C-alpha cells in the first residue's frame, strides 16, 4: 500500500474545486488552472488527489500538466524573478541578463533555488518596452538592466 500524504485543508480545497466543475474528466484543464491559482504550483500529491476526484489516471493529469507550459510542479520562490523576453527586451540583451541570473542562482528557467528564495521565469512583453531589458522581481520592476547589475539586485534580497 503506497501512501500519498497531504494536509487535510488542502485535500478539502482540491475536492471543492473538482466538485465545482462537476468532477468531470473533461474539466481537468480548468481544475488544474484553478488549483494552481490556489496553491501556486501543482506538486505530485495534488495531482494524485485531482486524478482520484476526476476519476482519470494520474498519468493523464501529469500529461496535461507537462503539455501546457503554464502549469508548474515547482513552487515559486519567495522572490519570483521574471525576465522579459519580448522583442524589445530581447534585442537589448535580455538573454545575457537571463544567463547571468542562471549563473548567479545556479538554476534554470522554471526552477527554484534550494533555499526557496528565488525562482526564475521568462515572460512575454510586459508593456514597459521603453525600459528594456526589463526584469520583475515580485511586483518590483527593474529597467535597463545589464548583466553586471544582476548581482547587486540579487544582493538586495539576499540579506
Amino acid at each position: 500500500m503506497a501512501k500519498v500524504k497531504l494536509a487535510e485543508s488542502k485535500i478539502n480545497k482540491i475536492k471543492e474545486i473538482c466538485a465545482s466543475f462537476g468532477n468531470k474528466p473533461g474539466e481537468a484543464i480548468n481544475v488544474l488552472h484553478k488549483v494552481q491559482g490556489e496553491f501556486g504550483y501543482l506538486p505530485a500529491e495534488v495531482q494524485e488527489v485531482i486524478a482520484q476526484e476526476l476519476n482519470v489516471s494520474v498519468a493523464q493529469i501529469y500529461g496535461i500538466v507537462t503539455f501546457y507550459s503554464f502549469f508548474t510542479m515547482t513552487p515559486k520562490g519567495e522572490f519570483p524573478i521574471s525576465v522579459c523576453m519580448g522583442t524589445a527586451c530581447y534585442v537589448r540583451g535580455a538573454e545575457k541578463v537571463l544567463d547571468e541570473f542562471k549563473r548567479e542562482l545556479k538554476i534554470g528557467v522554471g526552477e527554484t533555488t534550494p533555499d526557496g528564495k528565488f525562482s526564475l521565469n521568462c515572460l512575454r512583453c510586459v508593456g514597459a518596452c521603453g525600459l528594456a531589458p526589463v526584469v520583475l522581481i515580485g511586483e518590483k520592476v527593474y529597467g535597463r538592466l545589464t548583466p553586471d547589475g544582476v548581482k547587486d539586485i540579487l544582493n538586495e534580497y539576499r540579506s
Partner: protein
Amino acid sequence: MEKINIIIDNKSLQVEKGQTVLKAARAAGIEIPTLCYYELDGVKLENRPGGCRICVVEIEGRKNLAPACATEVAEGMVIHTCSLRVVNARRTVLELILSDHPADCLICPKNGKCELQSLAQRLGVREIPFQGEQSTYRKDLSPAIIRDVDKCVMCRRCETVCNVWQTVGALSAVNRGFQAVVAPAFEQDLVKSPCTYCGQCIMACPVGALSEVDQTRQVITAISDPKKTVVVQTAPAVRVALGEEFGMEPGSIVTGQMAAALRRIGFDYIFDTDFAADLTIMEEGTELLTRIDKFTKGDKNVKLPILTSCCPGWVNFFETNYPDMLDVPSTAKSPQQMFGAVAKNYLTTKLGIKREDMVVVSIMPCVAKKFESQRDEFKENGNPDVDYSLTTRELAELIRQFNIDFKTLPIEDFDNPLGESTGAGVIFGATGGVIEAATRTAYELFTGKKLEKVDFTELRGLEGVREATVDFNGTPIKIGIAHGLSNARQLLDEVKNGNSGFHAIEVMACPGGCIGGAGQPFHHGNFDIIRKRQEAIYREDAGKPIRKSHENPYIQALYKEWLGTPCGEISHHLLHTHYFDKSKHIEIEG
C-alpha cells in the same frame, strides 16, 4: 449497411458507408502503410490518432493529402494511394520520424519485427537527410518490461491499450514537441505506476521502445552448468503460436515439435504447465464447491463469486484497484507457480536432489509471469519456485540460437510425471477455458454424475463480457467471463455492488486470453491470428483422450502419493497464496 461508390487506384468499388479509406482499401486488397494506427477488431479496440501521417492518400478535389486511417469514404470519392505526390510525402514523413530515431537496429529487441524498420525497407529509405537532435532518456528497467523511450515514435498505441483495454492508466503522453514521449506519471519508473505487467503495450508498440526483459542468457548458462538439473514447463497457449515464429500458418499446433526442440536445447526434463493447469482445477474447483456448499448452508462469511487467479496481470490489477476485495479471488496459485512448487518440493525429493540444484524454467505466452515468478511469496530462502520465465518469443530465439530447424523436427512427448495433461488443461489458453475446465470437474464432483457432453460452447467466444448459467443437476450455477481488464472492471463493479448473482468469474487480462498474451509472436494488430490460435486450442482439446482434469492419472497419483486431498494441508502450504493491498491511499498529513 448502405453502400457507396468510390474509386481507389482506378479500381471502382462498392464499399460500406461510414468506414475509413484505410479499411475500404484493405478490404479491396490495397495495402496502405500505417504506423500510429492500431486495431484489434475482435475486441473492438482502436487507436486512431491520425498523427503520424504515414498513411496519407490523395483525394481528388481536396487540396491537402488526407490520412487514410482517419478519413471516411464518401460517395464518388476518387482516391490515389500511390501517386507521386503521395509517395514523396510519405517518404518525407518517414525521414522526419527517422531523423530523431536511434539507428541501433542491429541490437534492438524488435530487430526484424519492427514496423518502423519495415516501413523504411518498404519505402526504400537509404539515407536520412534531416539530422535532428536525439533525445536521451534514461532506460526504465522493471522486473518484466524495459522502456527505452528514445525509440518512442509517439504513436500512442500503448497508451490506448493501457487506458482503454486495460483501464490501468499507467501510461500517458507527456511533455511537448521534441521532448514528447509516453511515460508513467511524473516520468517515474513503471514499478511505481499501477502497471500490471500484462505487457499489452509491448504487443502494441510498433518499435523497440517497449520490450520484455530477456532471460535467455541466464537459461543457457543454467543448461551449461553440469551441477544443475534444468526443468522446463510450457504453457498451453505457447503450442498454438510458436510455429508462427518459424513461418508456419497461424493456428498450427506444434506441441510435439516444441518438446523435441526443448530436448535438443538441452533441458533435462520437458514437462507441461498443462499438468499444473489440471492441478489448478482440482484445487480451484474444490474451493468453488466448498464455497457454494457453505454459502447454501447460510454461512455469511463465505464469498461468492469466486474469481479465478491464474492470470498474474489480473492479480496485480485487483491488488491495486480492489484492495477491499482481496478475500474474493481463489487462493489457488497460477499453474506456473503450482508447477514451480511441485517441482521444487516434490520432484526434488523424488530425484534426490537439493532445491538449489534445480532450475525451473517456464515458457509462457505472458509477460506478467516474469513479474509473478519474482514475487517474494514464491521464494524459499530467496530461491524462487520458478527461476526464469521466458516468453514464446524468447523460446523461438533460443531455438534459432541452437541452430534447430524447427519445421523438420519429429513429434516427441513430454516427460513424466509432470508432463501428462488433459484437454481441460489445454483450454486454459483461451478466454473462458479455465472456467470451462473447472465446470467439467466441478459438475462431476458436485452431482456425482458423469458429464455426457464436455464441451460447454456457451462459455467460449470473444465477447468482452460473457455470462452463462450451467445446470448442475437442478442447481443453476451462474458464470461470468471477462477478458481485458476494462471488462473485468465492469464485472467487478457489479460484484462490489453486491447484486451480480454470479457463482464464479474468470478473468484474463489479454485479448482472447493467453493466446493473445504479450509474450506471443507479434500479431501487429491482425486479430485473425488470435482467432486461429483459439480454434487450435479447442482442436487440441478435442483431440485429447482425457478431457477432464480429475481423470488425469498422474494428478490422481500425485494426490495419492504426496498431496492427500485437494485444499488439504500440503496444498494449503504449497499450492495456495494470498494477496496484498497495492493501492495508493491519499492520507491526511498529520
